């Protein structure tokens, strides 16, 4: 797949001297859903702001659809729809007017049928004549999405799209995002909800302290960094681990009631067979066992700590 966005050696230093981005290189593939994860202040919003033209880069180059965002900003920006993190709305405008305004701003001729479709897709049609100030937070968020889609962009940036949105509405938005992807729109989302990235994304990038720590296919990432944990429920409980088991690096928890063993699924040998055999030799018995796979969240936390 070809890149629709190509970020090269991008840095941003704010007037205060704060380095928000440090030599960022990133390629977004056409048609994918890319999730950008990172703790607060990692540089997610700064990166998006520069790509969309809201902030000036200090160094580096960004191409959107092959067009330079600075020298060919008209072509580059017309490909992008942006849903910012904060709910910035014109409180006294009607939904219809504000969405139509956005379309005009991007230089597109009027197309009431298209706007009607967007509003219906986002369940805003019956609110089209309402002033934005009268809408709930979730509806305002959808108005922002409608504005971003009004000019039929090829790329959609969703900066924390589901922050403060209830579970049902969040699922609804995921549906909208998937439908958009099917229609060929490339989607870049930033999120705090790892679950959201896990659910939605094709690829995941992790940014921390202004640097891209990792970019990987979600599946590969999960597989590559995924650890599994075997938990044995001991019967009877154990006071201390025998010397013979020391090399397994086991954890004895819950006052000797559970024994925890972390292993790597990517390794050729997991060590489970020999562990179970050695437990039997040592006379340790258990009445139940379970295994859990580490979530993207665990991976994320590990990565951020490591960087």
């Amino acid at each position, binding site marked *: 797949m070809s890149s629709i966005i190509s970020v090269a050696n991008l840095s941003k230093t*704010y007037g205060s001297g704060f380095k928000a981005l440090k030599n960022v290189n990133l390629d977004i593939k056409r048609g994918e859903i890319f999730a950008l994860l990172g703790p607060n202040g990692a540089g997610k919003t700064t990166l998006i702001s520069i790509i969309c033209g809201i902030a000036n880069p200090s160094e580096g180059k960004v191409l959107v659809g092959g067009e330079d965002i600075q020298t060919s900003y*008209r072509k580059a920006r*017309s490909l992008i729809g*942006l849903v910012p993190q904060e709910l910035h709305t*014109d*409180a006294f405008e009607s939904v219809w007017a504000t969405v139509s*305004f956005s379309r005009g*701003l991007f*230089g597109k001729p009027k197309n009431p049928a298209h706007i009607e479709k967007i509003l219906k897709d986002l369940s805003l049609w019956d609110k089209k004549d309402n002033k934005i100030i009268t809408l709930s937070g979730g509806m305002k968020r959808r108005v922002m999405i409608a504005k971003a889609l009004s000019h039929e962009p090829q790329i959609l940036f969703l900066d924390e799209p589901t922050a403060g949105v209830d579970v049902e509405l969040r699922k609804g938005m995921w549906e909208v995002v998937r439908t958009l992807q099917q229609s060929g729109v490339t989607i870049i989302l930033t999120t705090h909800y790892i679950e959201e990235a896990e659910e939605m994304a094709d690829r995941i990038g992790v940014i921390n302290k202004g640097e891209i720590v990792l970019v990987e296919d979600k599946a590969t990432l999960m597989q590559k960094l995924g650890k599994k944990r075997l938990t044995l429920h001991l019967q009877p409980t154990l006071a201390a681990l025998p010397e013979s088991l020391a090399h397994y690096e086991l954890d004895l928890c819950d006052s000797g009631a559970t024994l925890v063993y972390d292993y790597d699924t990517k390794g050729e040998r997991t060590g489970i067979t020999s562990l179970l055999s050695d437990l039997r030799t040592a006379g340790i018995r258990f009445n139940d066992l379970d295994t859990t796979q580490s979530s993207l969240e665990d991976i994320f936390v590990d990565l951020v700590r490591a960087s």
Partner: protein
Amino acid sequence: MNYRAVRAIYLFEMARTWRTLLQSIVSPVVSTSLYFVVFGAAIGSRISQVEGVSYGTFIVPGLIMLSVLTQSIANASFGIYFPKFTGTIYEILSAPISYFEIVLGYVGAAATKSIILGLIILATAGLFVPLHIHHPVWMLTFLVLTAVTFSLFGFVIGIWADGFEKLQMIPMLVVTPLTFLGGSFYSIDMLPPTWRTVALLNPVVYLISGFRWSFYEIADVSVAVSIGMTTAFLVICLAVIWWIFRTGYRLKN
């Protein structure tokens, strides 16, 4: 040229005007009428003619300029400050439009509004005093030039301001005094020689003088100087705006 974007911004801003009709149009008309009652009728009745024109008639161009100046600045500064304040500026900055087009949309709408206002005040004045405009084309030229120039100035203030206080500060502390001291209510020839020289440092003097000339062919300074000074101020405002967008001052940093 992204005409649709200019149109969208222009219409959006004009829609704001119609939404706030009372504040935008009615209140300046009311205050102008009050000026006529106080200065024209009450005080004016005790003042003999000024350079062959009755005092009530004499102050009309100055009153129009007073409103056009302050309203141009207020409209344009608020127009660009408000999106900065609410955050909706993100959309303007991320749209495929040039700085020139952004300025054209905002300043065009602010200037349109104050030109309409100026004409309404002119019509209102016609109800109080007899009016004759010697040079209607020049009158309109001065009106448009002033409205555009001070809308540009207002745009600069709107970008510079990072709070409502700053937004009000320049119009209140600089523009209003300059306008009152710029010969709205008197000819600067009435001043003692020293103060007359000081008054010539006030750019508003040239605007009002030129504008009054287009009405009655009486002026404090030559018309060419008036046009020159107004154009110079226009160019300065344009240069500042060019610099703002080139550096991203208070917009992109």
